[in-house]
């Protein structure tokens, strides 16, 4: 009996920070992605906002690439001919909308020591906002469970799977925790606690301040124009960076982000600039994590 892999509830920030892959030996043994908090992921369940959805293949052989955001970051996913149901579902969806995705992890390592992760969806479906809220809550709980497993493990002189199971954690979590401890820097735990509490505040109206409204000094049209101009300038700057960092296979996105930071463009802003450049057709992603000028 081969049991089905459980679907882990993991936030984008934790998922995207994962860079430890355990490849299954032989054909039937599954591979796992170990997250910084010890999730032993083969399958993942995600609910968020579909912000970008594009067929990067062609009419006959569609390859759908999509972005889904949660309160902590963005999940990247690609569905091609081997995920016909997910690809078909994506083809019908118009961003922005709430979607749920069940899929398997994929990794891409452009070079030694670097790893990008994405989702290969098995099933994609449009959902209501309440389903997203439910997922955020559930994922907060699951993340806290992993944090407590991690903290218990760090109290042990020699943490082993058996000892963690005796404390009451499940075998997959105990295994993931032990692997994670050997690989990741554990000072990140407090950062993840902060992430969970931010995600919880996201659910609670009393913490929602709303976007800050600009003062009445300029008319909305003027501001929009100004902002657009500003955006265009930054986009042009980023585009030139992508071009200059490209040595033939596309520019590594991490390097672009770093260079942009030195010019005063923050990471958050870079995401929207990248989206805009992709939308306008100035650049494309030959592979995940790399950008090329068209």
């Amino acid at each position, binding site marked *: *009996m081969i*049991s*089905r*892999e*459980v*679907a*882990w*509830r993991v936030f984008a920030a934790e998922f995207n920070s994962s860079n430890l892959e355990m490849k299954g030996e032989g054909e039937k043994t599954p591979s796992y992605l170990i997250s910084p908090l010890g999730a032993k992921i083969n399958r993942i*369940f995600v*609910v968020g906002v579909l912000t970008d959805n594009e067929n990067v293949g062609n009419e006959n052989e569609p390859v759908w690439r999509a972005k889904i955001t949660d309160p902590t970051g963005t999940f990247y996913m690609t569905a091609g001919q081997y995920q016909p149901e997910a690809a078909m579902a994506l083809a019908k969806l118009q961003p922005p909308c709430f979607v*749920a995705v*069940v899929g398997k992890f994929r990794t891409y390592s452009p070079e030694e020591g670097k790893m990008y992760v994405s989702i290969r969806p*098995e*099933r994609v*479906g449009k*959902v209501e906002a*309440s*389903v997203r*809220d*439910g*997922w*955020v*809550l*559930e994922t*907060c*709980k*699951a993340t*806290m469970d992993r944090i407590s497993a991690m903290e218990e493990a760090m109290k042990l002189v020699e943490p082993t799977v058996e000892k963690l199971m005796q404390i009451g954690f*499940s075998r997959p979590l105990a295994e993931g925790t032990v692997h994670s401890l050997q690989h990741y820097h554990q000072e990140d735990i407090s950062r993840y*606690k902060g992430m*969970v*509490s931010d995600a*919880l*505040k996201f*659910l*609670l*109206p009393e913490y929602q301040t709303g976007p800050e409204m600009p003062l009445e000094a300029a008319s909305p049209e003027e501001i929009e124009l100004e902002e657009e101009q500003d955006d265009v300038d930054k986009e042009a700057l980023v585009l030139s960076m992508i071009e200059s960092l490209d040595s033939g296979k596309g520019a590594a996105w991490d390097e672009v982000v770093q260079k942009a930071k030195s010019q005063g463009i923050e990471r958050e802003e870079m995401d929207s600039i990248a989206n805009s450049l992709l939308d306008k057709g100035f650049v494309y992603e030959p592979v995940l994590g790399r950008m090329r000028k068209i």
Partner: protein
Amino acid sequence: MDREELAPHVEEIARVLGEKADKSKIAEELEKYVNLYRVSLEWAKRDILKKMGGNPDSVGDGSGRKNVADLTGDEQSVDLLVKVLTVNPKTIEVGGAHKSIVYGYVADESGRVPYTVWETESVQLKQGSTVLIRNAYTKEYKGTPQLNLGNRASVEESEEILDVADMPSGGGSAEVKVADLTDGMNYVVISGRISKPERREITASGEKKTIVTGILSDETGSAEITVWKDAELKDGDEVRIIGAYVKSWKGMPKLNLGDKAEIQVLAKGSLGDLSGSSPKVRTLEDVELSGGAMDVVVRGTMVDVREGSGLVMRCPDCRRVLQKSTCRVHGKVKGMDDLRIKAILDDGTSSMSVVFGKELTEQLLNISIEEAVKITTDERNPDAVKEMAEEKLFARTLEVRGMVRSDDFGPMLIAREARFLEADVREEGAKLLTEMEGFN
């Protein structure tokens, strides 16, 4: 070893030697053997006894006095202070000759253990008495220790009072809940309410026998129970069962009460209110580890709707689902419409196949079977209802009650009740946030 550590062993040797014992001489000898010549304690004791005219077999192997819970199943000689819970005489056949033995349970504050007295002439036990058993040995049977009183064993009545009457646990088998039952468990101690008791006549190896079957329920679930002898069980009886064993059928653990098992009928209401309540919510991982369950409540997310869901046609004779109007057994037949959903439920701890029959499919999709037939015909799409199920169920959280069976394909939940769950994210979120900030 210093004198203090050796003292109990000196006492033990002196006890065997009786009146002729000279404790200071024994202590001196023992110290010499153990500390000077470095002989193992066990051999030192045997040699000293032999030298002083005692029976070397009557000292322990170093295990000496033990608590029931500490028994390992390979003690060659062990002493226990226990209360005799049950005394059952039995005649067995050994090499063609009949032999009387006595078996039952003894217990101390740490636990309970089954025993057998092989020499009923020299060892007599009285139910309810507290005794010091000396020089018994243990053997392991199916992972549990068994206490044996052979020809070396002796028993002394003791004045000590052992608090075991209300002891909740048994030796190597603490009192368990229905949800804890797994295939192969022995000496199970469990309490619950009996329903659907039924006396049955069976023929076992040519002999007529009366057995009693029924269902035992507690707050974690229900299990079928079979008493392999005649017993008085009434519907609604609250009972404590001692010494049952578990055998699973299709993954569902079932309780069996053999000769050694005991049923205590408890006062009404002593188990609290169990009537009509549904069992506690269990995680899918927990249910999977049990292998199955007769009555279970789980909560999880629908992560997939599988092939074969929606409107199906069944054979009117055998109810098998038809493929192209053809039954695997009865050939081409006029099929009957039916609705079902086969899906995967996942709660983050594990995942499980779940099947919803016609009524639950109608309820979850909010359509009648007639409407389902009409939609399928109108849209000329045999998968119309399946697609509807995908749309309505995917990523939704459900609470499902039903029965879990296992086969080669893993466990499957056959749903009896189901409802959509929507968490109160504001309330639960605020609670979690308070808890978290309390930790920081």
